[in-house]
């Protein structure tokens, strides 16, 4: 539409309501307005004007200020209320001259005024000007309706994509406004096949659809990769490259990702561009902060991106808190920000850690008081618990085949740098899930495979000492050493051999994992009271009895877990090779 008045043809055919108690004035106005080609409605007082407005919905109203029964000011207030969001211009006709009376006309909802006696040329120009304004207003409203409609559709699609995760688990609390996706905020949580959990809070640049659009591929990648067993680093890498590729420069996603491991009670925390992630210790009530150490997602090219996390030991009852800057930047009516100090106060003043989540929301709400609530308060918290409390992951497979291959063998050998560059678990799991009988065992098989593979890689090929993992700083140290050893790896191999064969009832899967490391004294792991002979003869390290004890004590992970998950477990070749058998159906 063009808004250049010079280019507009004279406006014709409007419906114009004239309200004036003076008959001769009414007649003069009617004549002028008719001559311009408009339809005229006539009222002799305010009440009649309101009635005619209700019945005929005129486009413009010419209103005398002083009339019997109901004066023009009152009538115009009533008409503006009836018109609601439609623009119905009201032009006051008045012989009043003092500034105060004229201002009162506008204050009561009038849009303009004209002094008597009426000037035909000016009246015509005013009607034309208001008609243009009406057209613009109507177009704005159409655009707005269209936008709301589009947002609704986008929101529905987004809800279907984003709300497939595990945010409803009992150890998670989150706050996200229903329209938050259009603030660019998003919260995602999904279980890993081994029972672990990935948590993500993101904040895209900007507002509206541009901010919302990146959340969809992000959620797809997050859910897809996490549930297939990719590591947090791999999920972050993929999200970063995808966003980098599809989003224009200048649009990116600030975010934090946390991986919780409920078996070994640890967390890995990655923060890129959002405020510190808090870790609240239940025992001491102390807060540990994890500051943003990375650029936001979608800024750096894939080869520059750094997915390294900060690793930390957790205990049951410890909680992580992730938030966007919406909380500290909430403003009250005096335009002050809520700020970090007030946030920290909430942590100090709330004794019961279960109440902190609600206390934060309440305090922010109270702080903002009457001022417009931003709906920008995005917050998620998750608590470390025993896996029994939230259950194992149900491994969902959307494979349609019935039966699938039951008699096959596959060998995959990863050499030196391929061990650093490639995670074989999702690939192997994909194959295993082709076998219908194995599908109900998905989570268990993943955990078994993951444990066997990481033992072969970390303790076999890389010769890392698992006792490192015990101290409070141990996890970080362990992963740091793992990373350094992987980067320097020039020689070594892990070979996975999987065999599935049918049995008279069901079938059996044989997993063999062999590494080129120095081996280990598996006897000392198999029992809490290792035989002296086995330890001294085959132990690769002198402190292996203590080492074994540590690993055994270490939350029942490691070999005791592997034993529980398999029907048979055999170590061969001084611990360099392990063979696990899983038969189905399991009872």
């Amino acid at each position, binding site marked *: 539409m063009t808004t250049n008045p010079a280019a507009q043809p004279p406006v014709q055919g409007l419906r114009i309501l004239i309200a004036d108690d003076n008959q001769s004035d009414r007649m003069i106005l009617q004549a002028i307005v008719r001559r311009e080609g408009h339809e005229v409605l006539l009222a002799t007082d305010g009440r009649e004007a309101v009635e005619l407005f209700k019945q005929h919905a005129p486009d413009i109203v010419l209103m005398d200020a002083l009339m019997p029964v109901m004066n023009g000011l009152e009538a115009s207030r009533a008409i503006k209320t009836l018109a609601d969001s439609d623009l119905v211009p009201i032009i006051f006709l008045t012989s009043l001259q003092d500034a105060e009376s004229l201002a009162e006309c506008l204050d009561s909802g009038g849009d303009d005024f004209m002094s008597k006696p009426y000037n035909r040329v000016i009246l015509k120009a005013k009607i034309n000007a208001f008609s243009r304004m009406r057209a613009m207003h109507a177009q704005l409203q159409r655009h707005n309706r269209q936008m709301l409609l589009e947002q609704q559709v986008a929101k529905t699609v987004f809800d279907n994509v984003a709300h497939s995760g595990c945010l409803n688990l009992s150890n998670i609390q989150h706050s996200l406004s229903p329209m938050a996706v259009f603030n*660019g905020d998003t919260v995602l949580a999904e279980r890993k096949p081994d029972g672990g959990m990935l948590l993500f809070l993101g*904040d*895209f*640049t*900007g*507002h509206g659809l541009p901010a919302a659009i990146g959340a969809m591929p992000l959620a797809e990648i997050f859910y897809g990769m996490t549930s297939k067993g990719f590591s947090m680093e791999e999920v972050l890498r993929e999200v970063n490259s995808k966003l980098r590729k599809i989003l224009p*420069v*200048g*649009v*990116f996603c*600030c975010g934090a990702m946390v991986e919780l491991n409920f078996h070994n009670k640890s967390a890995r925390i990655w923060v*890129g*561009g*959002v*405020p510190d992630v808090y870790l609240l210790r239940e025992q001491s009530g102390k807060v540990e902060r994890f*500051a*943003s*150490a*990375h*650029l*936001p997602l979608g*800024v750096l090219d894939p080869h520059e991106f750094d997915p390294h996390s900060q690793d930390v030991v957790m205990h049951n009852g410890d909680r992580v808190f992730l938030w966007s*800057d919406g909380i500290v930047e909430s403003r009250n009516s005096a335009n002050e920000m809520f700020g970090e100090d007030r946030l920290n106060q909430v942590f100090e003043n709330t004794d019961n850690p279960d109440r902190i989540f609600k206390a934060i929301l309440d305090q922010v709400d109270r702080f903002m008081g009457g001022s417009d609530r931003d709906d920008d308060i995005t917050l998620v918290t998750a608590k470390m618990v025993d896996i029994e409390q939230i259950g194992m992951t149900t491994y969902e497979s959307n494979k349609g085949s019935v039966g699938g291959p039951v008699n096959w063998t596959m060998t995959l050998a990863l050499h030196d740098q391929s061990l650093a560059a490639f995670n074989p678990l999702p690939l192997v799991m994909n194959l295993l899930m082709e076998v219908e009988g194995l599908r109900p065992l998905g989570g268990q098989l993943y955990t078994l495979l993951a444990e066997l593979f990481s033992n072969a890689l970390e303790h076999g090929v890389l010769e890392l000492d698992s006792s490192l993992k015990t101290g409070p700083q141990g996890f970080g140290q362990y992963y740091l050493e793992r990373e350094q050893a992987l980067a320097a790896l020039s020689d070594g191999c892990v070979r996975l051999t999987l065999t599935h064969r049918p049995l008279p009832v069901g079938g059996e899967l044989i997993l063999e994992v062999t590494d080129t490391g120095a081996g280990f004294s598996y006897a000392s792991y198999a029992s809490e009271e290792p035989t002296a002979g086995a330890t001294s003869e085959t132990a690769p390290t002198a402190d292996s009895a203590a080492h074994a004890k540590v690993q055994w004590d270490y939350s029942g992970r490691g070999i005791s877990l592997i034993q529980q998950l398999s029907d048979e477990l055999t170590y061969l070749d001084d611990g360099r090779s392990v063979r696990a058998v899983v038969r189905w159906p399991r009872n």
Partner: protein
Amino acid sequence: MTVSAIPSDNGREMTIKITGRFDFSSHQEFRQIYENASPDIKVYTIDMCDATYLDSSALGMLLLLRDHAGGDHSEIRIVNCNEDVRKILTISNFGQLFRIE
């Protein structure tokens, strides 16, 4: 908020001064400045001495400028940040992409 540009005498540098809140409302203005800048300009300085606040859209604009000025080969300094501005730049780790002084 306002954005103003001061080219240097040698024609190779430009200082862009930000006043008030640096947010999406200044997108157009900011963009026009660097798009209309002479191609000889190789070095940009963003002067934040009168900037009170910046939001994530402003971070996006800084990235657009960086892209325009040659990406990894660009030379952009961000100077005179107040505490709030510096904090936002620190949280987003923009120090990896810009010289923040």
